[in-house]
């Protein structure tokens, strides 16, 4: 049946008989909400919160389209059909707003129990929608159905809106009391937006409908002001997107620029008169769209790569922290174990020495040999334990240096003399040469340890030939050098030789080393602001170890 007092609209909704405000309230609000929610949904389709916002926006669009049809159309069948869905749409908007708030606050889906509660609340509306308990008839004189709406049904779905407002408010307050200040700001923004939307929407819709029904208002034009609530909500969501990167939205600036340009150029079609300009504008429009898409894609790729890099950096940082913890534990363990080993080793070494000296009576030749091996082994082990202890001390910053001026050439000469006995035992010749008075400032005993390590290292890795130990001085530096005719080393070995537990190319020649001697030497020399390094022309071409300290 036709509403016989009103003119037929064109294109379903365009009637000359209704005010411009009606279109102004419905169409921009719908377009804005749809654009923003589609944009958010497209930015990450898998994110539940984006899906929920999209659903709310679609429901709102249905509402505005249906009310526009109710306002402008004159076919009773169509109007009563769309009017019939008012309850479902409003009820679903209320429920999905609560759902949206839950997911926004907790960053996860709601429980199955809560979903069942939502279903229980909405099911009566859905099931009763096609019945006379919802809508019984239509007035073709006024072209509305207010007279035939059932108050209990209308009251039920409107009260869902009120429940949603209260429910959401409680959720927001509870969460904001136990969250970070940054998220609290987001809660305030989102909460204000959604509450304003629900309040303006449900209050205006119910009041205008009710007041029209009881003839206090001539029509329900009042309700169109409620639609602006959605625009406010969308503005708040946009602030959240830009300021807090909520909804995982990226490239806002790039996409806004591209689409802004496209709209600007596209709008020129409405006032361009000449065909040439129309074609040129068309080409520009298509070009902007295509190039814009390429730009958006490339920026998106870059953003994703940056995000991946950030994730990897964070992971690396975490692993690094974990490793530091493990390293500290290991250092503590090594320190403890070394201390525990040192005392029994001292006892073994001492008693072996006493046995060899005949303090417990004469021993057979075989027994002496066995005890000598025992003594040498315990001595080597003591060196390893000492090295380990020194490393843990240096790494934990516990090593003390007693700095004082001393003559390096004297210290080197003493040690060269002592170690020449060991060299001779291996059939090696050890030469020593030095400039007079090579004074430096440092911990004499620690530097002595370095010199022993370097000369001993050369002896160990030299099969034949000899060693030349020297100390030179220039104006600023004193330089110690031990040059051997040993097995030399490759470039790769040179690069890693002073690392912890690093072993040279001839590690098989010397199985007793801990791989800590040179590492310790470097640590000690660097603590004296000096330098230690090695030079070699390659395998079997000998090596030259240098130590450089400040001269005084």
């Amino acid at each position, binding site marked *: 049946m036709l509403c016989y007092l009103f003119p037929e609209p064109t294109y379903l909704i365009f009637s000359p008989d209704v005010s411009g405000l009606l279109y102004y309230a419905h169409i921009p609000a719908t377009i804005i909400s749809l654009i923003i929610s589609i944009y958010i949904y497209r930015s990450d389709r898998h994110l539940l919160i984006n899906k929920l916002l999209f659903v709310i926006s679609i429901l709102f669009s249905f509402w505005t389209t249906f009310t526009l049809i109710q306002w402008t159309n004159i076919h009773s069948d169509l109007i009563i059909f769309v009017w019939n869905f008012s309850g479902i749409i409003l009820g679903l908007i209320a429920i999905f707003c609560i759902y949206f708030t839950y997911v926004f606050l907790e960053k996860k889906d709601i429980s199955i129990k809560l979903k*069942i509660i939502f279903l229980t609340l909405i099911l009566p509306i859905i099931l009763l929608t096609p019945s006379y308990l919802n809508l019984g008839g239509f007035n073709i004189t006024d072209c509305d159905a207010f007279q035939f709406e059932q108050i209990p049904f209308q009251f039920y779905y409107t009260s869902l809106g009120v429940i949603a407002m209260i429910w959401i408010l409680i959720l927001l307050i509870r969460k904001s009391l136990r969250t970070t200040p940054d998220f609290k700001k987001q809660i305030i923004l989102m909460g204000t937006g959604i509450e304003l939307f629900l309040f303006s929407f449900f209050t205006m819709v119910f009041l205008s409908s009710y007041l029209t029904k009881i003839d206090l208002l001539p029509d329900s034009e009042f309700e169109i002001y409620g639609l602006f609530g959605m625009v406010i909500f969308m503005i708040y969501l946009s602030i959240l997107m830009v300021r807090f990167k909520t909804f995982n939205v990226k490239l806002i600036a790039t996409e806004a620029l591209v689409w802004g340009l496209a709209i600007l150029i596209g709008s020129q079609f409405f006032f361009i008169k000449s065909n040439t300009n129309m074609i040129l504008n068309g080409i520009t429009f298509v070009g902007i769209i295509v190039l814009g898409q390429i730009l958006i894609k490339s920026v998106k790729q870059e953003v994703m790569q940056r995000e991946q890099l950030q994730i990897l950096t964070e992971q690396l940082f975490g692993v690094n922290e974990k490793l530091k913890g493990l390293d500290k534990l290991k250092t503590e363990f090594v320190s403890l174990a070394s201390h525990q080993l040192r005392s029994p080793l001292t006892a073994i070494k001492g008693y072996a020495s006493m046995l060899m000296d005949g303090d417990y009576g004469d021993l057979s030749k075989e027994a002496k040999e066995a005890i000598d091996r025992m003594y040498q082994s315990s001595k080597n082990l003591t060196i390893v334990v000492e090295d380990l202890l020194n490393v843990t001390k240096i790494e934990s910053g516990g090593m003390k240096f007693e700095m004082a001026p001393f003559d390096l050439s004297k210290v080197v000469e003493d040690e060269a003399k002592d170690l020449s006995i060991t060299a001779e035992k291996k059939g090696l010749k050890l030469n020593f040469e030095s400039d007079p008075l090579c004074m430096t400032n440092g911990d004499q005993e620690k530097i002595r340890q370095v010199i022993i390590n370097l000369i001993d290292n050369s002896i160990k890795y030299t099969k034949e030939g000899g060693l030349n130990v020297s100390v030179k001085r220039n104006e600023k530096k004193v330089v110690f050098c031990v040059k051997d005719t040993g097995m030399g080393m490759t470039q790769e070995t040179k690069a890693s030789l002073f690392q912890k537990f690093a072993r040279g190319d001839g590690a098989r020649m010397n199985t007793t080393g801990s791989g800590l001697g040179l590492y310790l030497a470097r640590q000690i020399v660097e603590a004296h602001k000096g330098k230690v390094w090695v030079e070699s022309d390659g395998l079997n071409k000998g090596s030259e170890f240098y130590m450089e300290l400040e001269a005084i």
Partner: protein
Amino acid sequence: MKNINFKDNLLTYILTPLIIIVSIISFYRFFINHDYLIGYEGVCDPSIKKCFVGCEDDSCTKEYYYSQVIKYAPDLKNECGEDITDCETASVCLPNNRNCSITYCDPEIDSNICSKQIEEINIENDNKDNSNNSTGEDILQDNKIKE
């Protein structure tokens, strides 16, 4: 796995088919069966019944009289087609009409918007000064229902 998906999408799986079913039922009810009542203003003769009085324009220079008619949409459609403007039977309830009702103005409730019947007008005219030239017939003529 299926169970988990169903739980995750419980609202979608239940609400979507339900809304589709409700939409189909509603479509059938309103577009096919026209199963609803139609309310409108019917023709009313104030000489016989107490009619509601309406204004034809905002300044209310011209009045018209009407009754409130409610008819079952399929009956009205059968009698008048889509448009009731020129349909004489629209303002009366026929014997085969279902849920048909015509409401006239009740002076006890709506005295200010009810028409006056011819007897009341005559009594008023007798009481008035003869300076008024209008006759009962003229008033009746003026009071004819305007569509």
